[in-house]
């Protein structure tokens, strides 16, 4: 079945797809945005957003039936009763794990922009230059000065709250007013600064929650229910931000239930001509054509599409001529940290529910610090006063016990590390030969694990957390050494990296596929290395930059 002609097609509607659609439509292009799952309309379809704990039969927990139905999602916190509809159904969309990889997906309009953690940090040249300086993988074809104006641009639109901390490793941005640190966080921040002579910092998290009205959105109400979808547009998502902007141009067509199975490629013109869509409801095949294609299907699914495209020219798919397609899969490794009790502050409490925490930016392998591993890590955490879940030693049951539980307990402060994972070609995805999904499509095989560098780093993450908290006066500090299985960071990156040489990279420095200049990949797949900061803001900036380049090239007749 023949479809229509558009100026541009955007594959995927998550954080980067939404940005691509906004930028392309605002530049006057007629755009088709394809989403493999159902539509979720802003506010109207946030069906649980105004429910309280007691409105859920299991108070937000998980049932045995859910555990049975979601063999992957059950591995961590995402499996829960309150936003189950926002997570992909594992049994419909299986994948093969040569090594365990926890892949938590959102297959609907908005993708994981609805459930994301919203932490938004800039990279610095410490990150962009690392591969070149250390001889790891390939050099980034981009430096901080190239992307800084685009960080400015996306921050101003998305609305990032944060404090201007003046740190080299974590450049300041265009921030809305910061959220408050709690009294014990301020205390520990001061002590860390003093103990570590100004070389380590505890700062308020920089988050895509708007602390003042912004872009027509009323702003964060401090309910801490972000992942249900926010009726106040309190945080950046496709639905709250980029989709309405794209729709307002009159240039956007959004088509849910559209699984892109292939990018059509004309080998004579060396250009993509469009995409093939499998309608997820009717199983019918439709073709759409366009001058430009933005691939934003989420890291691993973007690579899956490339692998299934132009296979008559390259057996391994579009972009495989480099040998880099599918390789160098990365995540952030976490699950390690420490926590304890902060004494005092009995006359202090908090008001409101802050959907944010504190951040301790990277300090290892910075300046003169040299470790027996490369790169570094940051910590995210919080200092809060205990509620009813505290332990009451004096009473076992009864009225006194109840009264004791209804008063707040001691202040606790804890944090967990987010470590950089090096690109490694043996961490990879391939197309599996046997397993098919619900639609009869081939699936990915994921083969990824933490290597020596990450394992060494984890020792520091643990020891440094404990040492810092103890030096900062935190009592009864307990270390936590948890599961570092890749995927759990939900920051899949790499597998279609950018570089300076078509022989070793899938994309050039403008996110353009070397072998098909009118195809751009601007989700996490393009990442040449991983840094240790949350990646979404960087996807936004690179997407806006790539659209600017693409449209200018189109106008010059180069695409």
């Amino acid at each position, binding site marked *: 079945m023949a479809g229509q002609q558009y100026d541009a097609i955007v594959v995927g509607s998550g954080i980067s797809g939404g940005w691509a659609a906004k930028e392309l439509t605002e530049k006057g292009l007629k755009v088709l945005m394809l989403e493999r799952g159902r539509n979720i309309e802003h506010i109207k379809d946030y069906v649980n957003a105004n429910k*309280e704990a007691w409105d859920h039969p299991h108070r937000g927990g998980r049932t045995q039936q859910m555990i049975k139905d979601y063999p992957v999602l059950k591995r961590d916190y995402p499996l829960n009763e309150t936003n189950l509809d926002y997570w992909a159904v594992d049994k419909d969309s299986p994948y093969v794990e040569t090594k365990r990889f926890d892949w938590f997906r959102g297959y609907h309009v908005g993708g994981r922009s609805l459930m994301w953690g919203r932490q938004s940090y800039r990279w610095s040249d410490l990150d962009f230059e690392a591969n070149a300086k250390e001889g790891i993988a390939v050099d980034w074809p981009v430096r901080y000065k190239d992307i800084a104006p685009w960080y400015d641009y996306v921050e101003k639109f998305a609305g990032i709250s944060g404090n201007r901390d003046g740190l080299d490793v974590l450049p300041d941005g265009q921030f809305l007013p910061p959220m408050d640190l709690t009294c014990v966080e301020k205390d520990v921040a001061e002590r860390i600064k003093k103990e570590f002579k100004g070389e380590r910092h505890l700062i308020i998290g920089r988050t895509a929650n708007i602390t003042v009205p912004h872009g027509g959105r009323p702003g964060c109400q401090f309910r801490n229910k972000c992942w249900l979808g926010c009726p106040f547009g309190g945080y950046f998502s496709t639905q709250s931000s980029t989709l309405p902007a794209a729709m307002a141009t009159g240039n956007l067509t959004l088509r849910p239930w559209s699984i892109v199975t292939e990018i059509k490629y004309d080998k004579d013109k060396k250009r993509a001509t469009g995409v093939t869509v499998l309608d997820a409801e009717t199983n019918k095949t439709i073709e759409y054509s366009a001058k430009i294609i933005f691939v934003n299907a989420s890291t691993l699914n973007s690579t899956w599409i490339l692998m299934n495209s132009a296979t008559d020219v390259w057996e391994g798919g579009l972009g495989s001529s480099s040998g880099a397609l599918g390789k160098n899969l990365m995540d952030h490794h976490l699950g390690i940290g420490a926590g304890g009790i902060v004494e005092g502050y009995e006359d202090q409490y908090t008001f409101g529910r802050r959907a944010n925490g504190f951040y301790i930016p990277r300090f290892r392998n910075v300046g003169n610090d040299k470790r027996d591993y490369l790169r570094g890590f940051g910590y995210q955490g919080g200092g809060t006063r205990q509620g009813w879940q505290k332990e009451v030693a004096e009473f076992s049951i009864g009225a006194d016990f109840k009264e004791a539980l209804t008063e707040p307990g001691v202040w606790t402060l804890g944090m967990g590390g987010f470590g950089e994972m090096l690109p490694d070609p043996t961490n990879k995805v391939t197309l599996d030969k046997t397993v098919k999904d619900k639609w009869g499509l081939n699936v990915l095989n994921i083969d990824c694990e933490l290597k020596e560098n990450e394992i060494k780093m984890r020792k520091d993450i643990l020891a440094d957390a404990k040492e810092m908290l103890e030096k900062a006066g935190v009592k009864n500090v307990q270390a936590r050494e948890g599961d570092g299985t890749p995927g759990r960071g939900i920051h899949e990156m790499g597998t279609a990296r950018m570089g300076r040489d078509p022989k070793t990279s899938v994309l050039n420095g403008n996110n353009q596929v070397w072998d098909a200049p009118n195809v751009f990949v601007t989700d996490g797949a393009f990442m040449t290395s991983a840094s240790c900061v949350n990646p979404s803001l960087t996807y936004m900036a690179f997407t806006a930059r790539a659209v600017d380049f693409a449209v200018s090239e189109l106008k010059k007749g180069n695409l």
Partner: protein
Amino acid sequence: MINRREALSRVALIMGGTVLGAEAFLSGCKTDTKGVSFSKDDIAFLNEVAETIIPATTTPGAKEAKVGEFMQIMVSDCYEEKDQAIFMEGIKKLDEASKKLNSKGFMESTPEQRNTLLVALDKEAKEYQAAAKPEDPKHYFTMMKQLTLSGYFTSEVGATKALRYVAVPGKFVGSYPYKKGDKAWATS
């Protein structure tokens, strides 16, 4: 995707992994659930057990929060089969313990007798859990107590009357005055 995860993990960490609320989110149950059936008498019984743990005071107790009904739902839907068996058996064991200690069934006992019994069972359960390995079965009274606390404090009466709850705070204050006797927030 971080704050929520870190918050939950932190609770579990600080509390040595024994916390109910966090555990309900994070526990990785493994097997299918088989039907368990609760009679009306069972639910009434569980409501009285819960009320003894969290009695009505100046604020409503566990019975008004329908904790017995909550236990039925949680045990039926969320418990693994082996834990369901321990829990159902526990209802009988608790009543037998009552007969032994107070010479009458739990439902026939006075509030004082019920209190004495559950204080003793709480001690027994704590001693048992302290010696148990992670893979050992849980004590039935530990289950009942945990379900009582999570069921009560996440109920509407528990959250809004025994604790404080503001649905739409509208702001966050990191240093907010507190004086002894002020209630804890239902959730942070």
